[in-house]
């Protein structure tokens, strides 16, 4: 039983991974076909499992209601389901489905406004974080402060008007020190990810092996 439960899935994982890596190096139409088949499979598997999220959300909502079954809780409990049904029914019942004007209306005025506002909220959260951390406390902190404020002011027209040198200086910060630090970090992160990948292929990644 252990073989079917543990070794076989690990072997399948390694096989898929190694075939795709080989495809990168070896010019072979067969490997290419396997790659495109496997990537399609992945999308199909993921798409099939899409209801799981709904199930977990519904379960958590139900348990919360069960602990505190008051009238106001019933309202909050049903709200996600009402909006789920609203979007779902509008999304399938008009010609053009999700491209129908009715569904687009929902997307434009609800989804998009909320999305853009969440982005906008980040302006505030990043501001308060900067207020807390941008202090001239050490060389590192000064580097953070300088990199941040100069490149920020470079993007604000008024300050560029007052100090035209902000433009080349801001660009320089982005293209030289930022590129240097970022590149070093990217190289190291890639090597870290590579090590994880190889360990996974070898069937040694603890979180994957232990899950029953």
């Amino acid at each position: 039983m252990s073989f079917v439960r543990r070794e076989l899935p690990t072997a399948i994982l390694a096989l898929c991974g190694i075939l795709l890596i080989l495809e990168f190096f070896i010019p072979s139409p067969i490997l290419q076909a396997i790659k495109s088949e496997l990537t399609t499979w992945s999308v199909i598997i993921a798409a099939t499992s899409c209801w799981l999220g709904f199930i977990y959300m519904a379960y958590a909502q139900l348990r919360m209601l069960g602990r505190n079954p008051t009238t106001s809780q019933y309202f909050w409990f049903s709200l996600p389901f009402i909006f789920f049904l609203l979007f779902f029914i509008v999304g399938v019942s008009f010609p053009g489905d999700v491209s129908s004007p009715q569904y687009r209306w929902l997307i434009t005025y609800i989804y998009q406004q909320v999305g853009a506002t969440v982005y906008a909220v980040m302006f505030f959260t990043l501001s308060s974080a900067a207020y807390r951390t941008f202090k001239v406390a050490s060389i590192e902190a000064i580097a953070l402060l300088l990199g941040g404020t100069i490149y920020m002011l470079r993007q604000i027209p008024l300050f560029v008007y007052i100090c035209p040198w902000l433009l080349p200086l801001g660009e320089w910060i982005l293209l030289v020190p930022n590129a240097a630090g970022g590149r070093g970090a990217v190289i190291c992160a890639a090597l870290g990810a590579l090590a994880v990948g190889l360990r996974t292929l070898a069937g040694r990644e603890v979180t994957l092996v232990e899950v029953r």
Partner: protein
Amino acid sequence: MNFWDALGAFVGSFFIISVLSMLWKDNPVFKFGQQAIIGATIAQYVLFNMKNLLNMAIIPISQGKWTYIIPVFLGLLMYTRLSPSYSWLSRYPVSVLVGVGVGVMVPGLLRGQVIGQVQKTIVDITSATTTYDLINAIIILIGVVTAITFFLFTKEHTGVLGVSARIGRIFLMFSLGANWAGEEVWYLTQMIGRLRFIVEKLIKGVILGAA
């Protein structure tokens, strides 16, 4: 302005304010918007995936591409997680997915993020035509090398390595600062866009326009 646009201006403004009110404190308006949008986005996610499933699996299967029954079956195995005694079956689809993930990740990392970055760093120096370019390229090289030394884990950061790691850290901080600034101004634009929506569509368009 027709009815639906006007209604849209109200609904949109309500949701904008609902999200913004989170900065003040948790309140019923925020809770309403937040709970509603969970339902809405799950519907969108499900619709999007069902459409994918239809186009990529169901239609091809009905046209005789029988192999696609396997991934659909594997996808269904994901739901065995809900039952403790059969949950091990969900390891199969997960294995295929992670295997494909590692398979596409490893080649991408090698070329784009390691060898390619090394190549860029060196070519910047060899292809520099002016002294200014050359100095910049050398600064980048120093930054890259010292940043890599900062990430060494098997050696304690003392002595020469300590100095190098410190310099690397300063470069990294510059980079973090610049990343922050890029995002900050970009979110500022988004905020202004939302305020414009409320002012132009709701206040000027509907409320003042109707009056």
